[in-house]
């Protein structure tokens, strides 16, 4: 029997693991890939306090991993396939074994939301991308479109100007949602063309992306934008596949609801980071969630 199982080794899970290890809880952190999570797709993190020069998402998460391991955290490369969670009993099943734990922290994160339009699935891997740092360098001197108007879309549009000849930033409204600093930067970026009031309706091409079909939401006019790449940053979906059959409370978008102490509607089950229903999904908020969840889990274990 474990004291604590944490599922997902992004910043929230690694921080929960750090705090739990220092609390001397018998803890295991399960991760189906390798530690990292969404932040791995970020080329340069400049809003995580304590790193005034900025650093890559990979380096930040690698530091978190090493720090947690310094205090004895065990990270196991195992994929969870099923959960049985009740107030009395918490069981975690991987493809090979069953584990029981006194408390559980869900840090399964989120994944990029898709557009859900014609051509997107067919052309994923052939010009449709959800990771600018991975795929940007394939578009040297080419034209690309970025879909979205939030921080990620704007940051990645600016990042892509390092490679692409022209970046069309397509947004459904006539103003951006992104942080003001990023808005200033993108408006000053010569290679970025802002396409307002527009939503993508189809991605065209066979062997690769050739164009993006757009609809102007004010005039209903349809136009075609010739591009070789389409980068999609329209938000995130909760990674909640494992949680579907559980009696957890979710918000309308499927993120897990918790109280101020990160406890879900099942006592002894906590959620932290991007999977949690909250206002702001950032590394800085994930680590706070993770620390609180570990502390609350410790108190739960002591009380039982």
């Amino acid at each position: 029997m474990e004291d604590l199982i944490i599922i997902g080794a992004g910043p929230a899970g690694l921080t929960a693991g750090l705090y739990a290890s220092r609390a001397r809880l018998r803890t295991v952190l399960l991760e189906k890939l390798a530690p990292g999570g969404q932040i791995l797709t970020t080329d340069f993190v400049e809003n995580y306090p304590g790193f005034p020069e900025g650093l890559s998402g990979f380096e930040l998460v690698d530091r978190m991993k090493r720090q947690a391991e310094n205090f004895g955290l065990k990270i196991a490369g195992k994929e969870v396939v099923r959960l049985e969670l009740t107030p009395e009993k918490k069981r975690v099943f991987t493809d090979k074994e069953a584990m029981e734990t006194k408390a559980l922290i869900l840090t399964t994160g989120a994944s990029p939301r898709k557009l859900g339009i014609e051509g997107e699935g067919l052309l994923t891997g052939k010009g449709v991308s959800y990771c600018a740092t991975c795929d940007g360098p394939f578009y040297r001197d080419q034209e690309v479109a970025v879909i979205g108007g939030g921080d990620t879309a704007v940051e990645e549009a600016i990042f892509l100007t390092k490679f692409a000849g022209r970046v069309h930033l397509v947004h459904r409204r006539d103003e951006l949602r992104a942080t003001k600093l990023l808005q200033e930067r993108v408006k000053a970026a010569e290679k970025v063309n802002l396409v307002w009031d527009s939503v993508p309706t189809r991605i065209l091409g066979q062997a690769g992306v050739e164009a993006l079909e757009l609809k102007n939401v004010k005039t209903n006019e349809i136009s075609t934008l010739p591009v070789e790449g389409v980068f999609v940053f329209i938000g995130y979906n909760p990674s909640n596949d494992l949680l579907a059959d559980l009696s957890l409370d979710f918000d309308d978008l499927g993120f897990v609801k918790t109280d101020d102490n990160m406890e879900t509607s099942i006592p002894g089950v906590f959620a932290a980071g991007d999977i949690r229903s909250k206002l702001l999904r950032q590394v800085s908020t994930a680590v706070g969630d993770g620390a609180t969840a570990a502390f609350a889990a410790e108190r739960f274990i002591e009380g039982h």
Partner: protein
Amino acid sequence: MSDVLQVTDADFEQEVIKSEMPVMVDFWAEWCGPCKVVGPTVEELAKEYEGKVKIAKMDVDSNREIPTRFGIRNIPTLILFKNGEVSQTIVGAHPKSHLEEELKKLL
């Protein structure tokens, strides 16, 4: 660094296309965070499938010709080859269990 076979534009034909064993090639680059998640899994598989499937990596930053030939525009991408032909393309980072399922189909 890993001890997995690194292939290049120059030796791809010999090492992959003409290989008698099935081959899995991990197309990656230093700049790509998610590739670093796939890397350790590929290294494990290289040991576990030694003598059955040849597992190789290609750095797309220093090799341009082969990634272009196979239309690679997203990394990480894994391509599985059998008898010199593409038998499966896996785009993105996937758990080891998924990769093993695909490798078993090659045997």
